């Protein structure tokens, strides 16, 4: 079977929804600029691109009309490159990488753009016309449970105190602040330009975050709970994209290689504790890779909530020092459809930067799922 590699990783700045610098930029405009830059930087021949696979959690409105195809055309790819939009909520753009990997191994193409987009400013979480199935809802199913409540459930189940969560959030901001100050995002960020508006900096990171400050925040979801806005990932606008190729193609065309995809997985779990999804997904992915958690040097664990991330860390026994070296979603932000490509691309580039061998990227997914990718150095 062909080897699959991640050649390049780019993303837009991640900025706060509604008040951030990208709130007035259309999502297709954001991700088209990221995609165009990805193609140019990587040097891939556009004629060789088989498909643009776009992850998006609420693919309607400005993210509608099969936004992947729209973006392929906007980014200047030749008309021969196809486009498909995929939805696995927060795991959408990691799923787009998995689909590219599967296609390469099926001999169904050599070069894929796996991207993700979400403007949480412009398309509301839940969509414009939410229409849950009333029978399923009335049956007591937790399929539509609010994400905040799932975080509260995990905090209770794993006895994660508000203080623990706040410590975790402070650390996330601290790592992200340091990475930003050291220019560690410079290579991955594509400035987004709209008229005179040029956005090149992440907007969610709060360097001033302190435990005292967080302790003053009101409870966000449950008046008797422990989760606040400060220990949740913020509503975010942003896009991310990676170039996924067969290793043979990358070598033949002299493309950079960040990491090889070693194994992938998805797993279901109870919707009311969807945040624990990374645990079964990671277990499956490691098994398929023939590795133990201890073999993994770099972990990118999406921080939907501090409580959720801590529950995964405790349940699976992850080493805090290997997790989210440049900060996680609590600090960086979490544009639902874009986060999977960001953390997988990040894990790949960290392998190279840190000179390590194995990496894991994993996410929880609303409705009760997890998704995981194991990478190895090329």
């Amino acid at each position, binding site marked *: 079977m062909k080897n699959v590699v991640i050649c390049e990783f780019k993303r837009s700045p991640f900025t706060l929804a509604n008040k951030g610098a990208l709130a007035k930029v259309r999502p297709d405009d954001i991700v088209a600029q990221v995609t165009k830059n990805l193609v140019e930087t990587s040097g891939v021949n556009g004629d060789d691109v088989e498909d643009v696979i776009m992850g998006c959690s609420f693919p309607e409105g400005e993210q509608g009309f099969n936004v992947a195809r729209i973006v392929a055309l906007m980014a200047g790819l030749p008309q021969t490159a196809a486009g498909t939009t995929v939805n696995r909520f927060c795991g959408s753009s990691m799923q787009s990488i998995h689909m590219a990997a599967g296609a390469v191994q099926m001999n169904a193409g050599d070069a894929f753009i796996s991207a993700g987009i979400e403007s949480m400013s412009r398309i509301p979480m839940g969509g414009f*016309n*939410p229409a*849950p199935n*009333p029978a399923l*809802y009335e049956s007591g199913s937790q399929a539509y449970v*609010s994400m905040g409540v799932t975080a509260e459930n995990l905090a209770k189940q794993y006895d994660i105190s508000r203080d623990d969560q706040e410590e975790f959030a402070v650390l996330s901001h601290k790592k992200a602040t340091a990475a930003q100050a050291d220019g560690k995002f410079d290579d991955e960020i594509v400035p987004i330009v709209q008229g005179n508006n040029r956005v090149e900096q992440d907007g969610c990171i709060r360097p001033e975050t302190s435990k005292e400050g967080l302790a003053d925040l009101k409870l*966000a979801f*449950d008046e008797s709970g422990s989760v606040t806005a400060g220990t949740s990932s913020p509503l975010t606008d942003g896009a991310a994209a990676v170039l996924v190729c067969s290793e043979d193609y990358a070598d033949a065309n002299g493309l950079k290689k960040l990491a090889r995809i070693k194994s992938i997985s998805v797993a279901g779990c109870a919707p009311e504790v969807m945040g624990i999804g990374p645990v079964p997904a990671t277990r499956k992915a490691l098994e398929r890779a023939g590795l133990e958690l201890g073999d993994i040097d770099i972990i990118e664990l999406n921080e939907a909530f501090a409580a959720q991330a801590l529950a995964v860390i405790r349940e699976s026994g992850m080493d805090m020092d290997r997790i989210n070296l440049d900060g996680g979603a609590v600090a960086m932000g979490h544009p639902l459809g874009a986060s999977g490509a960001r953390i997988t691309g990040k894990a790949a580039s960290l392998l190279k930067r840190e000179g390590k061998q194995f990496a894991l990227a994993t996410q929880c997914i609303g409705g009760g799922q997890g998704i995981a990718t194991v990478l190895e150095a090329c």
Partner: protein
Amino acid sequence: MPNESNTIKKVAVIGAGVMGSGIAAHVANAGIPVVLLDIVPEGAENRSVIAEGAVQKLLKQKPAPLMHKRNAKRITTGNLEDDLELVADCDWICEAIIEQVAPKHDLYKRLDGVRKQGSIVTSNTSTIPLNKLVEGLPESFARDFAITHFFNPPRYMRLLELVADEKTRADAMDALRAFGDVALGKEVVDCKDTPGFIANRIGIYWSYTALSAAYDFGLTVEETDSIVGKPMGIPKTGIFGLIDLTGIDLAPHVNASMLDLLPDSDPFCQAFREDHPLNAQIMKMIGEGYTGRKGKGGFYRMVKDNGRRSKEALDLTTGEYRPTVKAKLASAKAAKKGLRTLAEYDDKGGQYAWHVLSRVLSYAAMLVPEISDDIVSIDNAMKTGYAWKYGPFEQIDQLGTEWFAEKLEADGLPVPEIVKVAAGRPLYKEEGETAYYLTLSGDYAEIAVDEGAWMLADKKRGRERIDGNKSASLWDIGDGVVCLEFHSKMNSIDAEMTEMLAKAAKIDKKGYKALVIGNDADNFCVGANIGVALFAANAAMWPVIEQAISALQNALMALKYAPFPVVAAPAGMALGGGCEVVLHADAVQPHAESYMGLVEVGVGLLPAGGGTKELTTRAIMNPKRPGGAMPAIASVFEAISTAKVATSAEEARDMLIVRPGDTVTMNRTRVLPDAKAKALALAEDYTAPEPVEISLPGATARAAFDMAVQGFVLQGKATKYDSVVSAAVANVVSGGDTDIKDVITEKKLLQLERDGFVSLIKNNATLDRIEHMLTTGKPLRN
């Protein structure tokens, strides 16, 4: 809205302090662009920081100076050094800077260099005479200059005093008068160039007299406010509560400026004692930061003890705070029988009341003709500038001119000329359809009614109603138009009112061609009479309740589909059933200060007079709504389930209560005339609306609403019972047992409203809410 003859199309306000920014906000409320300039503070990086900061404050202030946040966009900010050119195309420039002659003169000279020919310049001064303001300025400037004196806060206080002198152009005054009246909605009173003009001249004397006498008579703060409050037609805060509200630090300034401007012979100068113990107390309070509600507290203050808030009052003799004690003066109770009973009552409250009345009413009366030639202007000024329920001359009539004169004489007090001239006759009288006031000559003069500005009382005078009962009446207001007037207790809806609503839907049978629904009360209608509902529920008279709901629905539907136009003319509160009446009219002609909303969930009910149906159908049929039914009905669900009330007619537009074709009337006295004009316009070629049919999502929407409500319950923002009431609302708004591909009628939605209403009123938690509202006036969060 400004009419077409309005010549003031752009305004500048100089000075972005409390008054300047408030005036600018209100000009913006009138739909007129306004420039707001202030000085450049020393060393400021942002040179327009004062004006810009003032607009930011306007957006946050409560009560809101802006009728809608978007009105702020009509205000262009700048500074006097870089942006003076912005006034060049303004038709009216209003100065509201520091109360000193030199800086004002400086500014006028600079304005004269840039302003366009024929533009009007006014000062909002409250203390500087006009003749001093124009001293040394060119004749051409003086011709364009006047005083426009607003009251704080400019959006809410209705009085606008205008002062001109002999040089001022008459057409400039006409323009200001028209703009103040129609565009700004003010009661415009022409004043003479005398100190304090009308309202402050009397008001400052009144305030000093009432406060110092309270001390002299040994009354407590609470006792004083129980007399100089509702019994004397003063806002219910009472006078101590009032000066806490306006700011205690203001008192020494206004007193000093009046003492400075008035001749020593004036009764105010005669009565004022610098060394009065209350003055010393006030100075001490100001020194310690007790400037009223804006400071640490005033004559009252709120204290927190173990998390419990309680109210304290100042002991006037010791100067110390103590818990408030409810006043129990027999005179205050007796005052229900009238002002004279109060003034005659033999306790310290009655004696105090007479002391204040004798001084203040005499003072006002002796100022005719010094401050105004007619008593009507003075009464109007006090009613709209100081929120007195009755003007001083109306109060004298309540006492009786003969009784008043005799009692003054008995006390050795001078009898004012106008009271002597009255010789026992009333100062106001009505004959036939006309009202008159007494002049100094001893003759009565007619109070002319402007066809564009009248209250229903002006149309009722000397006439019989067409029909009516104890809760509502039908009046012929001319030109084939009928006015339906509500006059039940607090204008709440009861069976009698429903009966008149039904009768109003048949006025065409009597040859009338249009209906206006409106009245003169402070509040259009506060909703259904829930006391009656509670009584019926406690007796388990369910069919009676359902019958009452049906009757209201039928009456409102009959009005909606009547073969003639119906125009609702709300002012003040139009809540619950009152809002439902408005929603069933063909058009609304609201007063700008209308507070409308469906608030039934506060008492555990849902709007079942057709209000839920009406908002839902409007939201679905709104051509501007985004695709998908959910955003449209979600906004309706949110508004009803949170009892949202629009705090202005403009805000009611956002809630679809006021529709795109509806216009807003700024002046309260023009609401009914404008509504009548609209009704007549609609009556030409009128056809009743087509029956409405819409599609609603049904169960899926209920699930989505429930998800949201459960989230609020978990967050502690909604109670368990809120979710029960919300579910009943959701059932109607979502269309009940329907599907998005089905079509449903208004009839079906009305049935859903009734079913929901009856199911809720059978719930004890709803009855608890009703009972709590009736006894405390506040909603119960159960």
